[in-house]
């Protein structure tokens, strides 16, 4: 644990903070292009954030401290998670703070407080969003953990750096279990980041919105923090998927060249992932709330199949 590795840690957090809006912008741009709309460029999210940060805060009369504290907690926990996942190098002093299971529960903190904030104002929208979010997440979490367990069986560890190390720097083996787990993970990814078959990040229609319903009452810097955090969440979930299922390119140690290569590879992978995400979003229609049981049920089933195939085939 030298000063150098702490520098890497700081660089990674800065990278997360400032690359996340670009990734969100990239996804939006590709989506617009795919759907034949004009687009504002990948830097639009930065302008949105800057605009929100410079605005005053409008608070409902009966908003309690929970409502005011939530954006900070959401932002803090997201940055915290960003410091744990190996993005460009596995030499991270912070990575041992939490393993994959703890990471899943850290995401649960964000959800817990956002849902509370949704109920704080006392409008029907907020309560509806919270209720739906908690229902969906309670179905998504077992699927998520099963996918992660399957992936961890190969590395015999739930520590992310160790999993990356075994996958990327160990000898290459074809693992059918990981294919199943990857499918399950993608479905959970769509759920957790509120993408199309589950939720729609760009709608405010009362019948469909989930995440947006909870944060409907936010404004100014509070909204900016939440928006930024959810961009980072998209970035983190994508790079978590990369780290677990496709970690080649992440530097084994902290040498500068390796990290530069790592950053380049990460950018390329994220660009491809963004396109895949948009293809899924454009190709599918939003599902009815109660159809999600089947969607997440099949995610769980796929992850379980992955685990079965690990024990049977590997």
């Amino acid at each position, binding site marked *: 644990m030298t000063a150098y590795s702490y520098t890497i840690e700081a660089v990674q957090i800065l990278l997360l903070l400032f690359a996340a809006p670009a990734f969100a912008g990239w996804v939006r741009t590709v989506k617009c292009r795919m759907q034949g709309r004009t687009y504002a460029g990948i830097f639009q999210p930065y302008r949105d954030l800057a605009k929100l940060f410079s605005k005053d805060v409008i608070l409902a009369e009966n908003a309690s401290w929970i409502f005011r504290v939530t954006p900070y907690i959401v932002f803090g926990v997201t940055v915290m998670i960003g410091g744990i996942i190996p993005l460009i190098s596995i030499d991270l002093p912070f990575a*041992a703070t939490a393993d994959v*299971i703890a990471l899943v529960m850290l995401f649960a903190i964000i959800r817990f407080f956002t849902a509370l904030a949704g109920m704080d104002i*006392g409008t029907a929208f907020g309560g509806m969003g919270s209720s739906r979010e908690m229902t969906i997440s309670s179905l998504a979490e077992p699927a998520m953990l099963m996918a992660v367990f399957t992936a961890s069986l190969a590395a015999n560890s739930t520590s992310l750096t160790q999993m990356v190390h075994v996958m990327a720097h160990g000898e290459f083996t074809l693992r059918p279990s990981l294919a199943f787990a990857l499918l399950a993970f993608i479905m959970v990814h769509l759920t957790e980041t509120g993408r199309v078959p589950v939720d729609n990040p760009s709608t405010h229609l009362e019948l469909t919105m989930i995440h947006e319903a909870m944060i409907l009452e936010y404004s100014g810097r509070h909204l900016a923090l939440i928006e930024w955090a959810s961009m980072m969440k998209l970035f983190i979930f994508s790079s978590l998927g990369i780290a677990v299922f496709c970690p080649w390119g992440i530097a084994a140690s902290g040498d500068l060249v390796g990290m530069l290569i790592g950053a380049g590879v990460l950018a390329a992978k994220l660009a491809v992932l963004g396109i895949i995400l948009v293809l899924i979003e454009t190709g599918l229609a939003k599902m009815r709330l109660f159809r999600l049981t089947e969607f997440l049920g099949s995610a769980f089933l796929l992850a379980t199949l992955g685990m079965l195939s690990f024990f049977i085939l590997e």
Partner: protein
Amino acid sequence: MAPFDIAIVSVFLMASPVILAPCCAKSRGLTIYLSFAVTAAASLAAVAAGILAVHYGTNTSAIVQMGLPDLPFHLRLDPLAGFFLCVIGLLSLFVSIYSIGYVKGFSPSRPIVRFVVFYALFIVGMLLVVLADDAFFFLVAWELMAASSYFLVMYEDEKAENRRSAYLYLVIAHVGAIAILLSFGVMAGLANGFESFQGYTFDSMRATTYPVGWATAAFLLSFFGFAAKAGVIPLHVWLPEAHPVAPSNISALMSGVMLKTSIYGIVRITFDFLKFFPWWWGGIVLVLGLISAVLGVLYALMQHDLKRLLAYHSVENIGIILIGLGLSMIFTSFQFPVLAALALIAALYHTLNHAMFKGLLFMGAGAVLHATHERNMEEMGGLIHRMPWTSVFFLVGCVSIAALPPFNGFVSEWLTFQAFLLSPALQRPILNLLIPLGAALLALTGALAAACFVKAFGVTFLGHWRGHQSIQRVHEVGWHMRTGMMLAAVTCFALGIFPTIVINWMDVLPERLVGGRIAASAGAYGWMWLTPYARERASYSGFNVFIGIMLVVFVVWLLLHARKKAVHRVPIWDCGFEKINARMQYTATSFSMPIRRIFGFFFHIREESQAVEPIRHPAYPEKLQYRLRVRDRFWNWLYKPIGEGAFFIARKIGNLQQGRIQVYLIYSLVTIIVLLVFLG
């Protein structure tokens, strides 16, 4: 003083209000202050005795010349008893402080002395259960605990509901006690061949090796008995009835620590007496634990009575503890002492954690009840503005029970997950396949618990007040109650931040019980890092999580507040509707509606809606009536047939009673002839 002496002092001190309270019955205030101060001091002594006993690994026993002629009372303080002394003492310390404020709020017409006497006897009973070292004394203490808690549940006995619940509790507690008694009988018989009472001491039970068949019988009987007390599904029905009607400080103790005495019993009998067992015992415990955990939380989600909801969560958490115990038993029977130690530590750590956060939550529910005189969440809302302290403490409880880092509930669930993930070490394909599914069910439980506590906290404390009376009536509770809750909340936090220290302390338990220990690896990287197996395998640092989040929050807050920005307070946006009111908020029932629909087959749901008096036009009814009743299915499946069967048999036997003396004389004659023929 040796830990054992401190424990004895604690028991005597705890029993003293039985005499003290009637003496100063004239002054209500004095009774309350004196009695609860004494019980708090006694609890502190119990905690000290427990901590020291575990720390030094003491093994002191003593014999009191009381009890049966040939079987005096045996007492023993070993690390396992010490750990449970510590759990019981810690929560009763907080609850005793809390009770000063809570009991003062009782209406003046209620007799206080009765309450205080049974309160003291209840805790004495629990302390003696863990200290007892022979079957007879154990059962005496067990019954003392059951009977005094029965009277406490019955405390507000003017309501028929309370009498019914308390009776149900008493019946199930005693069905369980019979099974425990029989189990002791089996073990004592094998230990000593029924020659003398010596077989009933725990020492001789410990020294005996049991044949597998009889050991299985003893295990199943005792597990049934303890499961009835712990509220394992399907024996859980008394919990959601008895906990809501008991005074809240009693609910806190019953749910927080009384249920744990049955965990103590299971650990004592399986790991200490029987020692060698086939793996499927662990399988039974694991499966029942999983069922209790998942169904417990699902039923909890359907409740809108705050205390009933918490009672169902006790079922869930007992399930989680049993999951750990079951895994530990499986690992033990396959000779993996270190893995068994990890699972056992997870179970016992969750026992301690659950005592703290469930005690805290029940105290919080009591504070809400005290302030609003309401248990129904649908009549609450917005209490965070009127009860700022209580809401913070209750939130800590919610975050802990929802297993969110960095609080304590997370640590024990994380350890349980680690134990699950180490199951591939078992060389049995069937177990390798099924055990990870258990982990998924545990994940489902955790996520549903988070949903349930968003609902509990959100509906009770956030939003607008839904009640019919004015919210101005509602006030924050006094400082005694706040202190009790605060101490419990701080303990929850500390147990989440410093798990390594606690695990180092309690490592002697698995060493004695399953012959493995984990502290050497768990604390290998200092107090900040919890690495239960190996650092490469998994690591967690609650302290870093907390500091990291706080640091980011602080920096962001500073950056954003460097330049002054106005915060405008405005009325809520009502979409131009202008008639928005508190009844339009999401309620507890509507919050859990999606989950009710998805998991509907677990519940017995009766839902009816009816339009009333369509006067003007059939399409515009005046009023819409909606009724919903959700019950768990076990009552109809299991208890109703048994109850009806019992009545049926009783009626048939009642036919013997003709009310005519001739008939009774014939019965006597027949009896005498039968006796003469068969015994003569």
